[in-house]
């Protein structure tokens, strides 16, 4: 199925900036190119300020690039609005954010928030929606009684699971995970990482995993891209890159993290 399209995501020479005036243009992303194959899990490593989150926002469509092209499943999408994207792609892009508490409406139950994407899409009947939501909740490893709880009654790890469920319930092609485990404790982080590995087997999606933690990326991802000051300095198979980094910056990063040896 996914074999037809080799590259699920292709980013060519992207420039992005937050400043509106042309005179003081400062690029957050500069001449960035990236290719992501279908079905793979790409780890994106970068330190703070390197433009990781900007890239995520660019791909999901929250911001528009100044120049450059983004192809998603072969279609140019950089100029499509969020709504147009939803119309055009049955299975689109979803995202999981860093702070789990911030990604939920604090005044709505988990169940309702899980069901909402399906309600909006209106393909299913109400009972089907609820059944699917409950199924998804189960899939992310939470019992049914969480269905009627409010976000603040859940721990960070549990909420991050729900966040994964919310993203995956619409069966996206591509999941962008923006530092989903960096605010979690080690033991909880392990659970979420396990869950992602698990879900990748059950649901069919590619994953762009953004992190500053090399260990996590090494653990989870197939390929890795290293982002430094708005451009990709190195991209390749995880093991190759970690064992034999070509770029000076990458080398420094890996030795600092204690992964070199």
């Amino acid at each position, binding site marked *: 199925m996914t074999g037809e399209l080799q590259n699920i995501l292709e980013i060519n020479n992207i420039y992005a900036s937050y400043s509106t005036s042309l005179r003081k243009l400062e690029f957050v992303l500069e001449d960035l190119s990236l290719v992501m194959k279908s079905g793979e899990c790409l780890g994106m490593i970068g330190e703070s300020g390197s433009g990781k989150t900007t890239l995520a926002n660019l791909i999901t469509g929250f911001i528009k690039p100044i120049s450059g092209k983004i192809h998603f499943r072969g279609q140019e999408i950089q100029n499509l609005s969020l709504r147009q994207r939803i119309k055009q792609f049955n299975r689109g892009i979803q995202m999981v954010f860093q702070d789990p508490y911030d990604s939920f409406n604090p005044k709505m139950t988990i169940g309702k928030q899980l069901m909402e994407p399906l309600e909006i899409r209106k393909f299913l009947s109400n009972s089907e929606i609820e059944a699917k939501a409950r199924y998804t909740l189960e899939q992310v490893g939470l019992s049914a009684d969480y269905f009627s709880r409010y976000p603040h009654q859940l721990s960070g790890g549990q909420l991050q699971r729900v966040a994964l469920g919310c993203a995956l319930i619409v069966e996206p092609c591509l999941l962008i995970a923006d530092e989903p485990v960096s605010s979690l404790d080690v033991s909880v982080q392990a659970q979420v990482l396990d869950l992602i590995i698990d879900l990748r087997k059950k649901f069919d999606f590619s994953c762009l995993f953004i992190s500053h933690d090399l*260990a996590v990326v*090494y653990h989870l991802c197939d390929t890795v891209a290293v982002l430094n000051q708005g451009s990709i300095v190195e991209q390749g198979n995880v093991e190759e890159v970690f064992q034999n980094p070509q770029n000076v910056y990458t080398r420094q990063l890996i030795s600092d993290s204690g992964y070199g040896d």
Partner: protein
Amino acid sequence: MQQDLTKAEYILKVEHLKVVSAQGAELVRDVSLKIKPGEIVGLVGESGSGKSISTMAIAGILPEGISIAQGKIFFNDRDITRISAQERCKINGNKIGIIYQDASQSLNPLIRIGRQIDEVLKIHTDLSPQERRDRVYGTMRAVNLSNVEKLAQRYPHELSGGQRQRVLIAMAIINNPELLIADEPTTALDVSVKSQIIELIKLINFSRKASVLYISHDFSTVKKLCDRVYVLYQGIPVEVGATEQIIKRPQHMYTKLLLESIPSPEKRGQKLLTMKARTRDYRGPAVNCLFAERCPKVFERCRQELPDMFKIDKGHQAACFLFDK
């Protein structure tokens, strides 16, 4: 001024510390720890383990509404829980230096860096402005800050995270404290800066002969830095030992599982861990082993009694009935 206090066997000795909130929640249940002069001691635990609160209790900066309910803290054999606020002011910043977790929140945003570092000197010494300035610049250079004259004129928000952390360290060490408390100083930093800060703390420990209490949730930095490690679980230390012992041969199930849950090259692509999730966040008094509900090797006694520290090896202790001989 230089009193010969190094005779004390332990520079810091905490005995049965218990910290409660206004609502009666036990944030720290029963922490005892000791630091010898010149030693770097790590305090490791996940969030909610009470490591930060213990540190604040030791440093005397507990927020309003949270107070020490029980226990003693000896600094150079003097119980600092019982001294007046004025006395306390003389110790803080002078004999005890503190490095905080979030440098951006720990600096007054409206005051220039130089003045903030200088404030410590102003409070504790009678040096002339000129002398103070020289010492501020000297210390700033000592923590690897460059271009210090200019930097001293900056405001905290104009600095990078690494620079801010260094400023905090400079502030903590400028009076050559005997004890340096570092509360997760690297958590908010990038990988490359992280290792530099670790090196810096090592250097300070070495060159200034300061003992260090290093608090972290991150075993990789603890491994690099500490001589001895306390592992904290829900406000109670569950395992103590030399770093080597803890990391290589963890005995308590909690430490074991925790170490296992850290991704490592060997475990790539595999499932990480089987530790059960915490079901609830219990804040009442501890009557049994708190880890019992998650422990894979739990047995009846665990649910009934609170285990003491049992000796395993030289300097290696664990609070688990498995070692009750």
